[in-house]
C-alpha cells in the first residue's frame, strides 16, 4: 500500500523476557501504517498485542518489555533509533496518547489545570499567563463547561467522562500530528462513549491530526475509522479500509469477529462465538496462530505461518487460502460464512 503515511510500522517485535527460558512475544512482527489525517483502528481480543504495539511506538513499555526488532517510521524517521531525550521531545508533542482508564490516568494530587499546563510548558515556550490561557482554551475545546473553575479542581472532583476529556486536552496541548487512543471509551458508560468518540472525530477534523484508535469494539471501528488492522496473537492478520473489512472480510478470524457481533438488522437466535481460546503466549502454534480455531484450517496452516499478502490495493491478509500454495478446498469463500442480512 502506498499511502502518504504519518506512521509506518514494519515487522515490529516487542518481547517480554520473563526468565531465560520464557519469552512472551507480545508483538511479533507487526506491520501497518496510519495514513495522514486518517483514523486507523486496531482491533483484537485482549492479549492480541494492541496496547503493547501502541506503547512500543512511544517507548513507554514497562519492564521487562523490550522492542527487539523492526522499524517504527514516524514521518520517515525511525523512532526506535531515537535517544531517550529525543523520544521525550516527541511524546506529548508530535505523538500523544490517551489511555483506557480515565479514573486512574490523572495524578490525584495535582489540579487539572496544572496537569494540562505541564504538557504545554514542556513543549512550548509560553509565559505563565499564556499557558493558563491555552489551558482554558483546551478545556473549552474538549467541551468542559466553566473551564476557569475546572482548572483549580482535582481529578476526584470530575466524572469519568470529564476526566477522559481532560486526558484528551492534555494530549492535544501541543497539536500532535498523531493521537494514539488506547481503548479510550472502554471504561465509560455507553452514552459517554459516544460523546468521547464524537469529540475525537470532531477534533481530528478541526486539527487535521491522524488517529490510531485501539479498540475491541467493531461498532466503534465502523463508526470512526477509515482503515482497520485486525490483530491476533501478536500479529496483524488483516489490514484494509473499513468498508472492505465489513463487506468483504478475508481472514477467517475477522469473519469470526464479525459473526460474534450482535446485530439489529437481522433476526438472531443467538450470537456465534469463535470456538476455542486465544493461544497461550508460551505455546504459540508453529503455523498460523489462528489455525487451532479456524474452520478452514488444513495441514499447511498448522505447519507453516502465512505472511501478510497484499490482496489488492487496500487489503492485506495473513491467510493461506489466498495463496498459490493453498491445498484445501479450492472453492472456499471465507466471506460466505458471514451472516450478512
Amino acid at each position: 500500500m502506498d499511502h502518504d503515511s504519518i506512521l509506518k510500522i514494519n515487522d515490529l517485535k516487542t518481547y517480554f523476557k520473563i526468565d531465560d527460558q520464557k519469552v512472551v512475544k507480545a508483538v511479533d512482527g507487526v506491520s501497518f501504517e496510519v495514513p495522514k489525517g486518517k483514523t486507523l483502528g486496531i482491533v483484537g481480543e485482549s492479549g492480541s498485542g494492541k496496547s503493547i504495539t501502541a506503547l512500543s511506538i512511544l517507548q513507554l513499555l514497562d519492564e521487562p518489555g523490550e522492542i527487539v526488532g523492526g522499524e517504527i517510521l514516524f514521518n520517515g524517521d525511525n523512532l526506535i533509533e531515537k535517544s531517550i531525550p529525543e523520544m521525550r521531545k516527541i511524546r506529548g508533542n508530535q505523538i500523544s496518547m490517551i489511555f483506557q482508564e480515565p479514573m486512574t490516568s490523572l495524578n490525584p494530587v495535582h489540579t487539572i489545570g496544572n496537569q494540562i499546563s505541564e504538557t504545554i510548558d514542556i513543549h512550548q515556550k509560553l509565559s505563565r499567563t499564556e499557558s493558563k490561557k491555552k489551558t482554558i482554551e483546551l478545556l473549552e475545546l474538549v467541551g468542559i463547561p466553566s473551564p476557569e473553575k475546572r482548572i483549580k479542581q482535582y481529578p476526584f472532583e470530575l466524572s469519568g467522562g470529564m476526566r477522559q476529556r481532560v486526558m484528551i486536552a492534555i494530549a492535544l496541548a501541543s497539536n500532535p500530528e498523531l493521537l494514539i487512543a488506547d481503548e479510550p471509551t472502554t471504561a465509560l458508560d455507553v452514552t459517554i462513549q459516544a460523546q468521547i468518540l464524537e469529540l475525537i472525530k470532531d477534533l481530528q477534523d478541526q486539527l487535521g491530526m491522524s488517529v490510531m484508535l485501539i479498540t475491541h469494539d467493531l461498532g466503534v471501528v465502523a463508526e470512526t475509522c477509515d482503515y482497520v488492522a485486525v490483530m491476533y496473537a501478536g500479529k496483524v492478520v488483516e489490514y484494509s479500509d473499513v468498508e472492505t473489512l465489513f463487506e468483504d472480510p478475508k481472514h477467517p478470524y475477522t469473519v469470526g469477529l464479525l459473526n460474534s457481533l450482535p446485530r439489529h438488522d437481522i433476526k438472531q437466535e443467538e450470537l456465534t462465538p469463535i470456538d476455542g481460546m486465544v493461544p497461550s503466549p508460551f505455546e504459540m502454534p508453529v503455523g498460523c496462530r489462528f489455525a487451532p480455531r479456524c474452520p478452514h484450517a488444513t495441514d499447511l496452516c498448522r505447519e507453516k505461518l502465512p505472511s501478510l499478502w497484499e490482496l489488492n490495493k487496500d487489503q492485506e491478509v495473513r491467510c493461506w487460502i489466498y495463496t498459490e500454495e493453498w491445498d484445501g478446498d479450492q472453492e472456499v469463500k471465507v466471506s460466505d460464512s458471514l451472516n450478512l442480512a
Partner: protein
Amino acid sequence: MMLKFIVRRLLQLVPVLIGVTFLVFIMLHITPGDPAEVLAGEGATVETIENINERLGLNEPLHQQYLSFLSNAVQFDFGTSWRTGREVSSEIAPRFFVTLELAIYSTILSVFLGVIAGVISAVRRYSLTDVTIMLVALFGLSMPNFWLGLMLMQWFAVKLDWLPATGWGSGSQVILPVIALGTAGAAIIARMTRSSMLEIISQDYIRTARAKGVTEKVVIYRHALRNAMIPVVTVVGLQFGYLLGGAVLTETVFAINGLGRLVVDRIASRDFPVIQASILVIASLFVFVNVLVDISYRILNKRIDLD
C-alpha cells in the same frame, strides 16, 4: 473547613488525655513500693512515714487523690516535686525542651536520609545500589540505638576525639546522639518510601506523565513522590512520638538531661507528681503530632476527606 477539623481534633484530645492521666495514676499506685517509705529513707520510724503520708495526702481515698490531681492539672498546676520540693513545671520544662530538640533533630535526619535512600532504592530496583541500601537499612533497623550510641562514642569521641562523648547544648554535642537516635527511623522510613514508591510508580498516572514527555526526574519527584509520601508521613509521626518517650537509653548513654531520664529517675524515687506531669506532656505532644499527620494527609492529597 480545615479550621473546623483542627478544632474538632484538638477537642478529641481531651478524653484521650484524661484516659492517659487515669492510667498513669492507677499504674503508679498499684506498683509496689510505698513513696513515703522511699522518701523517708532507710531506717525511718513509722511515725515519720505516717507524717509524710499525711503531708502528701496519700492517706486519702484513691479516687479523691485522683480527682484533686485532675482538677489541679486542668489549671496547669502539677504541684511540687516530692523529692526536690520544686515546682513540677520548672523541673520538667528544661528537660522537655532538650528531649524535644533531640527528637526533632533525629526526625529531620531520619526523614532526610530515609526518603532519599528510599527513592534511590525504588528507582534502581534490584540493582546493586538498591540491595546495598536495603541491607544497610536492615542493619540500621536491627541495631539497638544505645549500642549504636556506644559504638559512635567509642569511635568518634574516644578513638578519633572528633566530637564530645557526652552532654547536650553545643552543636558538636548534638551530632552523635542525633545519629544514634535517628538511624533506626531513617531505616524504617527508607523501607517505607521504597515500597510506597514502587507501588506508585506502577500507577496509570505515572505512565500518563511519561507520555507527556516529562523527564524522569519530574516523573519521580513531581508525580510519584508526593503520592508516595502519605504512608511515609504516618511512619514519621509514629517515629516522632516514639522518640519523645523512648529516647531514655540514648539520653542515658550520652548523659543528656532529657525528659526520659527524668522520668526514669523519678520512678525510682516514687516522685509521683513529676512522673504524672511528664507522661501527660509526652502523651499530649504525641497526640498533637498525630493531628499534624492527619492535616498533612490532607495537604498531600486533597482527596482525603477530613471528616
